[in-house]
């Protein structure tokens, strides 16, 4: 398409430059009229007809015209929130599994996404896997994707959603199907680190009001699920590495790192406590 575009551009501009040259034959009005007819109407109509036909032929393959007959094996519910992603896996067999800010997919399988939003409009996009789809309050949009090869990718929010729109992304990890199923089974269970030291500080300082860590008394549902936060590729919806230092800085000043984020700052806690909580969270593999 880019090459065809470049050729069309060159042809039109070439004619224009030729037309402005001083020494050339003056064309008759009839010839000029023919140029308008062919250049302005007939050729573009033919080219566009072909292009449009091709696009319409592609569309059902990329996105089904109606609800798909073949049920997808795995459905993933993603809800956009300012400025993070709530993720819930619905495997064909077994109960749903909650996660956040990271999506793992089995390679080669069709996965259905149901996309919603709880506050403002967001847009869900994994550039390497397919086109984007908006997440609109009050509506549920469906999108199916099939990853062709394994790897780790990035997906940004692509509808302006507020102050930290630029800081809302997620990582996508495409795995071999067996590895994916093992991972999902692990994800459904509490992390081995859930009972580690530092957990009591996490509980005592009020974190469970918003966050869940499976296997503990933390079952809050306001903020992202942290059950396996230590095993994720990124922290705070795709903006930081998952290490103790980054976690500690986010706990003490989330609003400075992500303006407009809902999470209150915990900078008033003793540094040692913050460090202990950060180490605990980093250990939730």
């Amino acid at each position, binding site marked *: 398409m880019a090459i065809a575009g470049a050729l069309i551009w060159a042809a039109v501009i070439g004619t224009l430059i030729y037309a402005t040259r001083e020494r050339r034959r003056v064309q008759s009005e009839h010839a000029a009229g023919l140029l308008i007819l062919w250049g302005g109407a007939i050729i573009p109509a033919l080219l566009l007809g072909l292009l449009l036909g091709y*696009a319409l032929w592609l569309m059902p393959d990329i996105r089904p015209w109606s609800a798909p007959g073949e049920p997808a094996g795995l459905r993933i519910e993603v809800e956009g929130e300012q400025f993070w992603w709530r993720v819930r896996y619905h495997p064909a067999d077994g109960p749903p599994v909650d996660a956040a800010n990271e999506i793992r997919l089995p390679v080669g399988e069709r996965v259905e996404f149901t996309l919603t939003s709880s506050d403002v409009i967001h847009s869900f996009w994994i550039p390497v896997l397919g086109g984007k789809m908006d997440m609109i309050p009050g509506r549920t949009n469906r999108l199916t994707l099939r990853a062709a090869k394994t790897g780790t990718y990035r997906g940004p929010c692509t509808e302006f959603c507020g102050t930290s729109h630029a800081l809302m992304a997620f990582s996508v990890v495409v795995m071999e199907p067996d590895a994916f199923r093992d991972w999902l089974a692990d994800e459904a269970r509490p992390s081995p680190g859930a009972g580690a030291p530092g957990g009591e500080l996490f509980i005592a300082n009020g974190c469970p009001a918003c966050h869940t860590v499976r296997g503990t008394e933390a079952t809050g549902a306001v903020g992202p699920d942290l059950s396996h936060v230590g095993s994720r590729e990124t922290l705070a919806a795709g903006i930081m590495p998952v290490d103790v230092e980054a976690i500690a800085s986010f706990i003490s000043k989330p609003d400075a790192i992500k303006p*407009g984020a809902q999470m209150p700052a915990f900078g008033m806690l003793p540094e040692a406590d913050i460090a202990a909580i950060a180490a605990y969270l980093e250990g939730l593999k």
Partner: protein
Amino acid sequence: MKPPPIAPEEVRRAQEKRLRDVWETPSGWRYWTSVNNTQVGVWYTATAFAFMLFAGVLALLMRTQLAVPDNDFLSADFFNQAFTLHGTVMMFLFAVPMFEAVAIYLLPPMLGARDLPFPRLSAFGFWSFLIGGAFVCGSIFFDAAPNAGWFMYPPLATDKQYSGIGADIWLLGLSFIEVASIAAAVELIVGTMKCRAPGMRVNMMPLFAWYLLIVAGMILFAFPPLIAGDLLFELERMFDWPFFDAARGGDPILWQHLFWIFGHPEVYIIFLPAIALMAMIVPTFAQRPIVGYSWIVLAAVGTGFLSFGLWVHHMFATGLPQISLAFFSAASEAVVIPTGVQIFVFIATLLAGRVIFGVPMLFGAGGLAIFIIGGLTGVMVALAPFDWQAHDTYFIVAHLHYVLIGGMLFPVVAGLYYFYPLVDGRKLSDRLGKIAFWLMFVGFNVAFFPMHLSGLRGMPRRVFTYPEGLGWDWLNLISTIGAYVFAAGFLVVVFDVLRPKSRQPALERNPWNAGTLEWINEPDENWGVRSIPLIESRYPAWDQQDLIRHTDEGRFYLPDAEEGRRETLVTSVLDAEPIYCMRVGGNAVSPIVAAFALGAVFIALTFEWWVATAVSAFVTLGAILFWAWTGTAEIPEKPGKDIGLGLTLPLYRSGPESVGWWAMFITMVGDGTAFGSLVFGYFFYWTIHEDFTAGTAGPGVLWPMAALACFVAAWLLMLAARGVNARGSAIGMRLAVGAALVLTAVGSLTGLYGPWVHGMDPTAHVYPAIVWVLVAWTAVHGAVGIVMLLYCLARSFAGKLTTAHDIDIHNVVLFWHFLTVTAVTTFAVVGLFPLAL
């Protein structure tokens, strides 16, 4: 044709003195009370350019922030305000007003009119634009600018915590400017249809006038849906009526429809006038008439028409059914064809002529080269599968800037270099023009071409920063460098315009040897044309021998101003046969007072200062009534006058022959479109819900039907009033008008009583809210109608509305036709439609 006879020298000197006195521009502070198109057009253009420079500075700030990854030059919040304001200002305060400004300046001389039919309305529009624009732009200095993006998607933009007062400034400030835009559209349509020089039949109109007619018509159908959307939006923000709140039956998608039904035609509203400038420049530089006049007119009409069927291509990612995506994809591709025809008309004209190259051509051709790239990427993004990738990325940012800068800014600069001698009698510098062009052309491409790549590499638009290592870093750095080069180029243009030119010798008239009528104007006289010529050709300055000399010698129509009044000719719509001699409004303060008072209404509403709002509204009404009373439907001191060449024309005409009737008609078409958009909202909610009423009570059948009956009866009485008046009975007319007044008041109240007595709570659910909006819309129109009826009664008692002089009653009856359609639609929809559920 044999040249008309010439008057003796001393008679001509006396005529010239009288004309000069009548059209004289006031001096001192009174200069600003001028309403003549020459002054207002220049102010308007300068103001639009000033807003453009302001928005350009915002763009440079943003580019600086994005030059390197993880930059903290700007805060996230300021960046979000900056990009919102950049888009808003460029669209609403530069691109559209620029066309109105240029049209106000150029249209009268092109058509051979002395002024537009409603010069005070032009002045009102300008002052409204200035006030509204300053209000919107100024907000950023108080950290209160709108910050939800220029298309203001709810629920983000309806969130008061997030947007603060910024969203109200956007909604109210721009509604105010949109009202002014519609006023300008009315003025331009009436001017083009009714104020052409005798003999200039529609198929002889300069292409610029054709384009303006089309664009003004588009404004009339495109802006009202946005005004309706603004109304719903502001009702949600101010009074919590849940139009876009999904939890209470609203839907954020309705805003997207209303916005883009406006927003897509808007692109063509911006683009077509720029093409219109090219359509004047190209024949001049090819030194021959345009090839394919009817082709280009038809193509422009086609573009305008198709542009209303494309809006959904801005919503390809919202999850609409595939079938509608396919339809809008096809329509979006179809619009390429008329656009292509217009471009090829220019190329064909150049090929069929001997081209003289100059700075205007340079900017024109450069703009075309840029625009075509934007058009080609447009073809790509019109295909849904491609758009799913490109949508809301920097690819779109690149695409829209290629379209708008190539399709609007470059042609406007071309127009500036081309028409500058008309304003100042001197040319801008060729050398500076060339430097500016190359800086702008190269800078533009360096800035925006890499954005295609950063978009395809996944960079979303509207991000205040981005992490390093995603392959976006150096592309963004190049874009930033290009943006500064581009800005430098534009500064050269600004310098060229502002540098003192008094040492430059004044040029002869028509320095480019153009063929159209505007070039016979004398730049140092305010009267426009010395006499209004008889037109026999599309390019009269080429085809009609000695046209300039004969016009200057006052051999044609209206060479004099014996009664000391500003006058121009009103001609018939198709054939431009002279109908009457119109006295146009002179310099006045009332439009300025009305504009400032109306501005105060909108500003006070933003801050929810209710008392100030009411006071300003009262002053506005007073100013408008005073303006109408003193400046319209004036009864002339004699029935007709000799306008030259042995032709005597009346000085007063009413009904469809008069310009006021057309203005009312056109205004009400726009008003009807806004109303239609609200009705669309009603049915939109019906289609998206299983049970649209959500179990809440409706307004019943009885009260809506009673209201409907009152409005229809009032309409019949108005028809009777007009008829009785024509037969000479002032008393019968007054009685009929009085009865209509009572019935309208009763009808409005009855209409409101329906939802009220059934306890419909507009904050509870969207169904009561939309019913209240329709009923209140009708009642407000009823109230406006009542003011008009009182005005008619007062005019009748003052002897200004009589059997022979019946402009007022004709125009009010015309309003009543539209009011009746509105009332019947409203009450049938809210009263009867629920029965069909």
